[in-house]
């Protein structure tokens, strides 16, 4: 680690209070409150139009909130212009200045802070070494590959040791291998430098692997903020459940203890299957495909199902089956040690009660 970039920059906390942004009558962001701890890595995840970028742009200062407050390091920044916020930011399309060399691009924030030329050069070169591009300072951005350009953008964002680093889908323009390499790189820098990261992405895999916590947005509203495991295993509502990973969703009648299927099969749910209280009546039972396993037909405690399709994908196989009432159930099973299953075959589906979640119907 070059000594010019101080070994441990402590991150600043970000506090978003009741943030709202309206464009005309459209609510792009609707009453979002989120606290990001100093040094934390938080991903904003959501489909396009969910408001995740607007939240990020509000933290950066490019969008002026219609309502609410943004505090960075305890200081109210709601009305502060972007150039006074001391934030580092990496954009989706690199945005390296084409008229400047790689070194001058990285040194740009230092120049804006009135640091002398020699010192600027030294610090820029040090930042380039941090992103493993030492010696590239004299090239022009155009001479670099997409991945290298994004590293330069990263170097430019961290060169003045900001407490907060914002990233707006920084990896979406890169191909898969480069993307994975950059994910590791960004995680490494986050660990070494300790800044706070807010990372916008629509790629759930990226969010799950990189972030300490993931905030899910839909139509401008925050759905859930949780660590990856909790988000995947105990999504707090149907939207989060269906947005992250695959989920089987079956309509059931809920009497407070048992979930009853239309075919009069029923399952007794453990108390923690219910995340928010569900009123008796129609409900949705959700279960991940990999929680299910194949059993002999008519085995006690299994559901009878007919196999429609088998998709072999190496280590795992996807079984698409349907129950007697016609609802589709997908299973992800390990390919090894599994008796071959053919389309048309009748099987039993075994589901462990602890893998089942229950949501109120119609709340997706």
């Amino acid at each position: 680690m070059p000594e010019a970039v101080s070994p441990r920059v402590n991150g600043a906390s970000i506090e978003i209070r009741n943030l709202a942004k309206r464009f005309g009558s459209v609510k792009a962001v609707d009453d979002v409150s989120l606290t990001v701890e100093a040094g934390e890595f938080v991903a904003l995840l959501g489909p396009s139009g969910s408001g995740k970028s607007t939240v990020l742009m509000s933290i950066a200062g490019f969008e002026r909130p219609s309502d609410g407050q943004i505090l960075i390091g305890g200081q109210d920044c709601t009305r502060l212009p972007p150039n006074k916020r001391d934030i580092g930011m990496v954009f989706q399309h690199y945005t390296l200045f084409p008229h400047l060399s790689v070194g001058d691009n990285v040194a740009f924030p230092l120049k804006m802070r009135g640091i002398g030329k020699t010192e600027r050069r030294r610090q820029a070169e040090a930042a380039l070494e941090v992103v493993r591009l030492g010696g590239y300072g004299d090239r022009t951005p155009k001479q670099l590959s997409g991945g290298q350009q994004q590293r330069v953008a990263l170097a430019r964002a961290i060169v003045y040791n900001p407490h907060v680093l914002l990233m707006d889908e920084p990896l979406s323009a890169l191909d898969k291998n480069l993307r994975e390499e950059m994910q590791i790189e960004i995680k490494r820098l986050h660990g070494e430098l300790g800044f706070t990261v807010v990372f916008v992405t629509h790629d759930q895999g990226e969010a799950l692997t990189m972030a300490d916590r993931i905030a899910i947005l839909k139509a401008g509203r925050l759905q859930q903020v949780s660590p990856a495991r909790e988000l995947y295993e105990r999504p707090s509502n149907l939207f989060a459940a269906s947005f992250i990973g695959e989920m089987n969703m079956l309509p059931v009648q809920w009497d407070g203890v048992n979930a009853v299927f239309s075919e009069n099969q029923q399952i007794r749910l453990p108390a923690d299957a219910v995340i928010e209280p569900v009123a008796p009546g129609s409900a949705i039972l959700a279960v991940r495909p990999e929680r299910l396993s194949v059993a002999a037909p008519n085995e006690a405690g299994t559901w009878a199902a007919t196999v429609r399709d088998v998709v072999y994908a190496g280590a795992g196989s996807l079984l698409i089956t349907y129950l007697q009432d016609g609802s589709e159930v997908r299973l992800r099973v390990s390919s090894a040690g599994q008796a071959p299953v053919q389309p048309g075959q009748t099987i039993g589906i075994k589901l462990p009660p602890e893998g089942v979640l229950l949501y109120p119907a119609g709340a997706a």
Partner: protein
Amino acid sequence: MSIGFFEANGRQMSKGAILLLMAPFFALVIFAFLYPLVSLLSLSVLEPTPTLANYERVFDNPVYATVLFRTMRIALLISLLSLALSLPVAVLMANSRGPKAVFLTACVLLPFWSSVLVRTAAWSILLQRNGLVNDFLQGIGLTSEPLRLLYTQGAVVVAMTHVLMPFMVLPIYGALRNIPSDYGRAASICGAGPLRTFWEVTLPLAMPGIIGGFILVFLTALGYFITPSLLGSPQEMMIATLISQQMRENLDWPFAAALVGVLTILVTIITIAFSKVFRFERMLGARA
């Protein structure tokens, strides 16, 4: 499967189609530009016998050199003035959306679409002895009697700046509009205020448009005829007026042709010099 004559084959049209489409344009250029220019220039070296005497006359008499330098000085002044006036307009246009953008574009283009003659005549009405400008100056007490404003170099500079400004505004506007807004945001998050962002990022990226507009105005001003001849001082002639005078009043075509030759060479040198330093396709708005 055969590819049709005009059909685009991926990106390339057939050579025949290109030639056919370009033919009317080339025919016009050859007929209406190259042929008259070449015959005029040959006049300058062939009349009365093969000679360089016409060119010697241009350089022997200091009057002509003075006219040439005055023309270049005025053209440069007009270019600088119209750059100074156009830059804010272009920036405002590039940053406007909706009705405001339409209004600004109309402000630039409407005068552009009216005849140069009309715009020049308008200035002669404004600048005459009992015109609006003199009335105003006397009204606020700056002067007690009418100033001589018409038939001066000043009148030429002001009117030509007005006439040629769209040639400056439009390329700069085009260049500014081509700059992705993310660059401004990147500069801003790096700590640059609005002025610093403009100076460090926007201006350098708009430079092709600025240079392009500058050359367009400068070269057009060099050979401009109508405005200098209507508003200019006869004692302080510009080169186009001089050429016209030699042709129509003195009927000295070989000498006028030599003046055209000098002007043509000058324009060519300036164009080549600029295109060496700045690439032309970028000036016309193509992304590098």
